[in-house]
């Protein structure tokens, strides 16, 4: 058990993608603020300037939209008949991406396709790009991968997502071994908990705040509280009671989070209808230059192509690394900003 925990602490999910709720909230509000600033500057500077500047999404509205689009992703994944773990991986990629990017900056309807395609690739499930694109209306393969790079950078190249599904199988085996519950009851709890895991943790922030086994216990407890309690008691029989109490509290708070998004919500038309006004609002305030990701990708490639001649100075060494870093005013500005902001995530990998 101890080694299991030690191993989890080494995972990129723990090192790069676990936050206290307050930290996550501040990252998101920073992303929201940066997007607002950039987009309003862009609109003002267009010719003629856009007037009035539209209302922007608040961080709370972005959160609702993110839930909605994660739901859309899961529905698309179901339509594509992707395996459970890949659906889950893709959903988590989308949620991670929108921690440091605003929904107003990159179109979520595009990104969710990219997440599904890349999520499959990352899990070693190779689908032909064009076959995949065909499953979506008016979508080309080029569009699907246009944002792949942006996605990878946004998820900090952490391609391995730790899910609670295997922990659930272990827990169910353990329950059967205990022989204190009817098999029917265990089967029912198993099915319900699995359904919860396939939805609720993916459309909430559970993965950011809880470990796979905590999420599993929370889902099991929603499915059948006694069973979960019994397992927790068992697992901590030797440990001091404070430890068990702590675990129960954590599982309880995770449970509350999952409860807000029960699996029935996935196909709830009312919930989806209620999002209409926000979707409308998003359309008015999004970044006009990033709606077409294919064009953006082309522009990037072009810019990379026209590598400026480098001065043969001491800088040469540095410059050579990044083939085409433009040392100009913009760069200098950015450098200043980067310094001011530091790395909001803390230290690098490794």
């Amino acid at each position, binding site marked *: 058990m101890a080694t299991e925990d030690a191993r989890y602490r080494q995972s990129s999910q723990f090192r790069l993608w676990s936050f206290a709720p307050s930290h996550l909230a501040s990252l998101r509000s920073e992303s929201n603020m940066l997007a607002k600033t*950039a987009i309003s500057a862009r609109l003002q500077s267009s010719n003629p300037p856009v007037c009035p500047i539209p209302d922007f999404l608040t961080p709370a509205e972005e959160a609702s939209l993110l839930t909605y689009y994660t739901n859309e992703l899961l529905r698309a994944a179901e339509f594509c008949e992707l395996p459970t773990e890949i659906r889950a991986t893709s959903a988590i990629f989308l949620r991670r991406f929108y921690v*440091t990017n605003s929904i107003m900056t990159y179109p979520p309807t595009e990104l969710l396709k990219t997440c599904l395609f890349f999520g499959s690739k*990352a899990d070693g499930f190779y689908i*032909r790009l064009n076959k995949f694109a065909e499953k979506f209306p008016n979508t080309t393969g080029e569009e699907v991968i246009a944002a792949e*790079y942006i996605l990878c950078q946004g998820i900090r190249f952490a391609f391995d997502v730790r899910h609670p599904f295997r922990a659930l199988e272990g827990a169910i085996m353990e329950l059967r071994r205990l022989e204190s519950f009817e098999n029917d009851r265990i089967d029912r709890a198993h099915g319900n908990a699995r359904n919860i895991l396939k939805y609720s943790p993916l459309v909430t922030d559970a993965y950011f705040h809880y470990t796979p086994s905590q999420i599993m216990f929370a889902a099991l407890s929603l499915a059948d509280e006694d069973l979960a309690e019994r397992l927790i008691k068992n697992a901590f029989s030797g440990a001091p009671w404070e430890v068990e109490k702590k675990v129960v509290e954590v599982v309880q708070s995770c449970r509350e989070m999952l409860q807000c998004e029960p699996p029935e919500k996935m196909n709830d038309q009312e919930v989806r209808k209620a999002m209409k006004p926000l979707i409308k609002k998003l359309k008015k305030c999004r970044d006009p230059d990033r709606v077409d990701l294919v064009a953006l990708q082309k*522009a*990037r490639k072009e810019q990379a192509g026209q590598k400026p001649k480098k001065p043969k100075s001491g800088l040469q060494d540095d410059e050579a690394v990044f*083939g085409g870093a433009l040392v100009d005013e913009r760069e200098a500005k950015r450098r200043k900003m980067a310094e001011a902001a530091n790395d909001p995530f803390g230290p690098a*990998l490794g």
Partner: protein
Amino acid sequence: MAVSPLVKHPTDALQQVTARAVSSPLKNANSAQASSNGTPLSVSVVPNASAAMQSASLDIAERMNEDEKRKYVRGKKLGEGTYANVYLGHLRHDPSQLVAIKKIKVQKEYTEGMAPDAVREIKHLQELSHPNIITLHSIFSSKDQNLNLVLEYLPLGDLEMLIRDTDRVRYGAADIKAWTGMLTRAVWFCHENFVLHRDIKPNNCLIAADGEVKLADFGLARSFADPYKPMTTNVITRWYRPPELLFGAKHYSGAVDVWSVGLVLAEMVTRAAYLPGNSEIDQINLICQGIGTPTEENWAGVTKLPEYTVPKEVTPLHGKNYYISRFGVIGHEGVDLLMKTLILDPKKRITARDMLKHEWWHKDPKPTLKKNLPKKSGGEEKLGDDLKRRPGVVEEDRGNKVARKLDFGAAR
């Protein structure tokens, strides 16, 4: 099973940055101005991708990428592989800290986005942290959207160089034991973390400045927990490919890596690949000759594998004496371990975990200390004295060549 829900999130490490206010992003806001497209439009704005490029400096993700990139300075090219160029690099603020920067090439044949090799390598190296596995320090992208993997710098070549340089590099049973031990620990750790390497061979075993062997090149790795879809059999360089893959088994396990480790061990002893097949058919023939023909008797179910074909003339499994006569320098226990890694039936083949429990490690000679291991010839100028010592020159305490041969005799 991950029963313990005790792990807390690393809030403390990250908290101090949370309070940080947005650093006046207005500074950059004007940058979009120059590029604004002249077409007047009342309601919507004409999209302009290059305007987006300019304001890209505002993204947190971009900014972090820039920061990561700026931490390193790239130097000369170290080498070239099939899917990447590797450069020497160092930390900007401390040039004595060397790194290897692996720049993934843009693949012409693969047009479906980021190359799967790169995805696999990044995915697994991000999760594996072990002294015998190459460390991935960082990843960043350059302007042209090329991926750069910042890896631990391993200046002393690889096991293949040592094995091949028979003129200048001499080594013995204790050295082989040390190298094999380090490789086995790496493989064990991968398997503990449900990762199959699938390309173990001497030139993927790189050597650190202190002599530590580091398993590298995870471009073919995969997790073996994924239950769906059959697994591809087209992995592992042919000479190190186990019979189950050659016969087209669609489900396989850590045993495939163990077979490769066994052949690396064999190769270290004789300094020539043990089964250097020049085609898949030839590879199967060599396995039949060098180990024995896979049959239902020694491997239940083998004849049912999709591509099972063996030469008509059945070679019985070789006994221990056969291996002793070829690999005797590593002693009886060493040969025992070698034979267990080369068991035809993957279900009976020893696991990496059990390899580590084998008694060979505790028998004399003890594995050579890292710092005393032979090094490749033509060492780097920057390295310390002991690394500069001419490889192949047998030092006093190591005994001369003849003495070592006698030692091997004694070790039996």
